C-alpha cells in the first residue's frame, strides 16, 4: 500500500492511543499499512486481558475490604481515634498490590525504553503540579491502594501497547457498562477487577457474554443497588418487609442494551427487576458463598413466571434472568443502540448513517460478535475518510502525552489528579450513563483552558530533554499542517513549543 500520512493519523489517533515517542517507528508503520497497523492487535490471543501478579480477583478484594471494614469498626468500638490502615490481612493484600504495580512497571519500561532516545531522561509521570503529592499524606487503606494499583496497571498497559486499539475498546466498553468508584468502598476497590473480569475477556468476544458478566458482577450489583432488591413475595422480602429496587433493571434496558425508546415499558422495567431479584454477592460472613463473589440468593428471588417484552420466563432461579438477558442482548433495539454508540465513539458525533446501519447488521448477523463489529468498523471506508473531528477525551489526551514522551508512570497519582481536574475522574462518572462522548463535552471552554494548563505543566518538567520539532515528526510527520509546524518552530522556548504541540489540533483531534 502506498504511504498515506493522513490515514496514519486516523490509525494512530482515531483508533489508537497515539504514536509512541523514541524509536518506535509508529508513524512510519501506520503510514505504510494503516489498516494492518490497527488490526494487528486483534489477532493476539487474550490480548485484552490484564493479568499482573498481585492484581487480585474480586472475591479476594471483597474479603480484604470486609476485613478492613471490620477492623475500622472494631477500632471505633474500642474508642481508638482511627484504624491503622496497614494491619493484619489488609496489610498483606496492600503490599501485594504495591508489588504488582512495580512488576508491571518494570516489564513495561524495558519493552519501551530499550533503544529509546528519550530513555535517558529522568522518568516523570505526566500531569498536574499542585494537586500532588499532598502535603502530609495519610497512609492509604487497602481500598485506596487497590484503586491506585489497578489504575496504574491500566495506565501502564495503555502506555506501552503498540496501537492501542484493544485498550481503546476496553475503555469504550468499560464506559458503556460503567460503575462509579464514587458510590462507595465496594465500587472503589472493585473498579479495576470489574473491568478485568467483566469487560476485558469479552471486548473481542460476544456482547451477550459481556452483558451477563457485567450484570452479575458484584461491582455492578452494588453500584445499581440490586443486592438490596428483594422479591416482594420471596421469603426474605416477606420476612424483612422490604422489596424491589428497580435501579439496575432500568439501566440494563435503558443504558446497557435496548436504549431509551428501545421498545420497553415501565412494566418491563419492574418485571426485569423481579426477574433478577436474588442476584447479589456474598457478604462478610459468607453465608451464601465465598465473601465478595456473585451469588444467587433463592430466598430473595421473586417466585413465579414473569412476562418480559412479550415473552414468558418460567421461574428457573438464576437462569430465569440469564435467559432474559440473553434475549435482550439479541433484541434488534440493542443492535441499533450499540452500533450507533460504537460509531459515535470512534468516528463522529453524528456518524455516517450508512456506517451505523452496516455495524448494526453485523451485530445482528453475528449474534453480537464484538470482534466482527470491530473489524467491520476498521473495514469501513467511512471510518477512515471522516475528518478527524472528535476531541480526545482527557484520558486519551493524558495517555497519548505519556506515550509521546515515553514516560511510563510508576505512580498513578499525577494521572489521576489530572483526570480529576479535566473532569474525567478514573472509573468515577457522575451517573450510570458514563462519561459524555461528544465534542460538546470535551471541547468546552473550561476544559480547553485546563488542558492547556496541564500541557504547560508537563512541558515545564520535561521539555529540556526533548526537541519538540522531533516530536512533531513522531506525532504527525508530513501530515502536520504548515501552521502547526511554524507555531512549534517559532516557540520561544522548548517548554512553550512542547505545550503548543500537545495542544495542537493534530494532537487533540482524532
Amino acid at each position, binding site marked *: 500500500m502506498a504511504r498515506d500520512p493522513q490515514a496514519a493519523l486516523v490509525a494512530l489517533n482515531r483508533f489508537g492511543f497515539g504514536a509512541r515517542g523514541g524509536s518506535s517507528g509508529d508513524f512510519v508503520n501506520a503510514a505504510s499499512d494503516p489498516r494492518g497497523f490497527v488490526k494487528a492487535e486483534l489477532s493476539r490471543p487474550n490480548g485484552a486481558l490484564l493479568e499482573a501478579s498481585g492484581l487480585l480477583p474480586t472475591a479476594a478484594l471483597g474479603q480484604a475490604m470486609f476485613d478492613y471494614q471490620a477492623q475500622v469498626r472494631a477500632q471505633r468500638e474500642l474508642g481508638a481515634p482511627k484504624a491503622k490502615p496497614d494491619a493484619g490481612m489488609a496489610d498483606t493484600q496492600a503490599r501485594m498490590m504495591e508489588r504488582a504495580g512495580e512488576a508491571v512497571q518494570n516489564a513495561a519500561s524495558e519493552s519501551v525504553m530499550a533503544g529509546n532516545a528519550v530513555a535517558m531522561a529522568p522518568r516523570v509521570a505526566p500531569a*498536574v*503540579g*499542585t*494537586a*500532588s503529592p499532598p502535603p502530609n499524606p*495519610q497512609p492509604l487503606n487497602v481500598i*485506596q491502594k487497590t484503586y491506585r494499583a489497578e489504575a496504574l496497571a491500566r495506565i501502564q498497559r495503555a502506555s506501552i501497547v503498540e496501537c492501542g486499539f484493544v485498550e481503546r475498546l476496553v475503555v469504550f466498553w468499560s464506559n458503556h457498562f460503567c460503575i462509579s468508584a*464514587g458510590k*462507595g*468502598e*465496594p465500587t*472503589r476497590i472493585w473498579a479495576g477487577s470489574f473491568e478485568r473480569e467483566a469487560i476485558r475477556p469479552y471486548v473481542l468476544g460476544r456482547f451477550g457474554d459481556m452483558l451477563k458478566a457485567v450484570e452479575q458482577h458484584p461491582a455492578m450489583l*452494588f453500584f445499581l*443497588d440490586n*443486592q*438490596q*432488591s*428483594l422479591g*416482594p413475595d420471596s421469603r426474605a422480602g416477606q420476612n424483612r418487609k*422490604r*422489596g*424491589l*429496587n*428497580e*435501579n439496575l433493571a432500568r439501566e440494563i434496558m*435503558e443504558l446497557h442494551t435496548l436504549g*431509551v425508546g428501545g421498545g420497553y415499558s415501565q412494566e418491563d422495567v419492574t418485571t426485569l427487576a423481579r426477574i433478577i431479584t436474588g442476584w*447479589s454477592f456474598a457478604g462478610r460472613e459468607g453465608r451464601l458463598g465465598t465473601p465478595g463473589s456473585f451469588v444467587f440468593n433463592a430466598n430473595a428471588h421473586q417466585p413465579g413466571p414473569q412476562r418480559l417484552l412479550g415473552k414468558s420466563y418460567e421461574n428457573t432461579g438464576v437462569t430465569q434472568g440469564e435467559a432474559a438477558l440473553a434475549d435482550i442482548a439479541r433484541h434488534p433495539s440493542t443492535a441499533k443502540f450499540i452500533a450507533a454508540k460504537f460509531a459515535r465513539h470512534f468516528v463522529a458525533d453524528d456518524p455516517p448513517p450508512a456506517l451505523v446501519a452496516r455495524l448494526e447488521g453485523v451485530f445482528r448477523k453475528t449474534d453480537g460478535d464484538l470482534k466482527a463489529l470491530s473489524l467491520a468498523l476498521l473495514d469501513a471506508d467511512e471510518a477512515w475518510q471522516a475528518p478527524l473531528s472528535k476531541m480526545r477525551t482527557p484520558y486519551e489526551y493524558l495517555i497519548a502525552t505519556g506515550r509521546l514522551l515515553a514516560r511510563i508512570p510508576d505512580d498513578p*497519582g499525577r494521572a*489521576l*489528579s489530572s483526570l*480529576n*481536574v479535566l473532569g474525567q*475522574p478514573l472509573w*468515577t462518572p*457522575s*451517573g450510570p*450513563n458514563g462519561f*459524555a462522548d461528544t465534542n*460538546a463535552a470535551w*471541547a*468546552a*471552554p*473550561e*476544559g480547553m*483552558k*485546563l488542558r*492547556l*494548563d*496541564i500541557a*504547560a*505543566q508537563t512541558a515545564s518538567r520535561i521539555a529540556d530533554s526533548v526537541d519538540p520539532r522531533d516530536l512533531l515528526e513522531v506525532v504527525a510527520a508530513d501530515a502536520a499542517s504548515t*501552521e502547526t509546524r511554524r*507555531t512549534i518552530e517559532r516557540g520561544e522556548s522548548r517548554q*512553550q513549543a512542547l*505545550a*503548543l504541540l500537545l*495542544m*495542537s*489540533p493534530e494532537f487533540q483531534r482524532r
Partner: protein
Amino acid sequence: MTMDCCESRTSPAATRRALLLGGASFAAWAYLPKFARAADGRDPRLIVIILRGALDGLATVAPVGDPDYAGLHGSIALAPDGPHAAILLDSFFALHPSMPEFSRMYKEKHAAVVHAVATPYRDRSHFDGQDVLESGFAGPGRVQSGWLNRALEALPRGERVMSGAVSALAVGPTAPLVLRGAAPTVGWAPVTLPNAADDTAMRLVELYKHRDPALAAALSQGLQLDKIAQGDDMKPKPNTNAIGAMRLVARGAAKLMAADDGPRIAALAFDGWDTHANEGGPVGRLAQLLSGLDGALADFESGLGAHWRDTVVVVATEFGRTARINGTAGTDHGTGTVALLAGGAVKGGRVISDWPGLKPANLFEARDLAPTTDLRAVLKGVLHDHLGLSERALAETVFPDSAMVRPVKGLVG
C-alpha cells in the same frame, strides 16, 4: 447485608475542580439585558438551578396533612413533631428540617413552593427527563437548545458582560442544556492549577484561529472567564464534598453576578439526587444534599447583596420519585415533584398546589404523585413577570407548542 457507602467521591488528592465538574456547574448569558442599566428601571436577575437525578418532592416539602403520606413514605417520612421535626409551612405542608434558610426566606415571604408539578414528560428516564426539562420541548430528543437560551434570544440585548470577553463562544456540558443554544453564554469554574503563560495561550489561540476555529472560540472563552472569576475566596480548599461543591459554585456564581457588568441570567446544575436506596428521612443522604442546596440559596442571597431584592431563583428537577418507598428504603423514578422559588422578587410565603391526594386511585399509574401543575406554566410565569417576555414568545419559541399551558401569574412582584 448492610453496606457502608459514605466514602468521598474521589481520591484524597481530588481537586475541587473535579468535584465541581462531577457535582455542580455554572453558566450564564454573555450579555446584559438592555433594561439592566436603565436609570429608573429594575435590574432583574434570574438563576435557574437544575437538580439532576430526580428530587423526591414528597421528602422535600412533605404533605404531612395528607392521611396517606406517612404510610407511603414509610420509614423515611417526615413528621411535624418529635426529634428533627419538619418545619410547618402551613397547615398541610412541612419543609424538610435541613432547609432552615429556605424556611426563613419563606417566612419573610421571599420563597415559595409549587407542589405536584411536573414537566410534560411521563416516562422515567433521567436523561430524557432532563432533556425535556431543559429543552422546553414537550418531548425528548430535542437537545439543540434550551428554553432559557431561547428566552434570552427574545430579550433586548445590551452590553456584553465582563468587558473584554470574546465574541464567538462555544459551550460544553458545563453549560447545562437549559442554557445551550444560539444566544452566547459563558461558563466558569474555579481551578487549582497554575495557569499556562499568557503568551503560550495567545500563540495557541492564533494557531486555532487558522486551523480549528471551534477550539479557538472555546479556549478564548475559557481564558477570559478564569481571569474574571479569580479572587481571594476562590483558593483551593481540601476535602470539599459534593455539598461543599454546591456552595462553592453558588458563591462563585453570586460573586460574578453581583458585579456591575456581571451576568444577569444564569443556570446551575447540581448532581446526585437519585436516591434509590437509603434515602434517609429528616437526616441522611437526601438531608445532606438538601442542606447543600439550602446553603447555596443562602450564598446567593448574601453574595448578591442589594441585588437579591431583584432576584428570582428557580429550583427544578426532571421528575419526582415514587410515592411509596421501595424495598430498599429509597424511592424509584416517579412523576410529580416540587419546584422551589426563592429571591427578593418572589411573592412568597405560600405553597402553590392543586393537591391531587395520595390515595391509590389518585396516584399517577398507581405509583407516583400525580402532577397537577405543568412546570412550564411556572417557568412561563416567572419569565413573563420577571423578565417581561411576551406570552406569545413564551408559547411559540421558548416553550414551543405550549399555548394551552397558561403562565402562572403573580409569582413575582
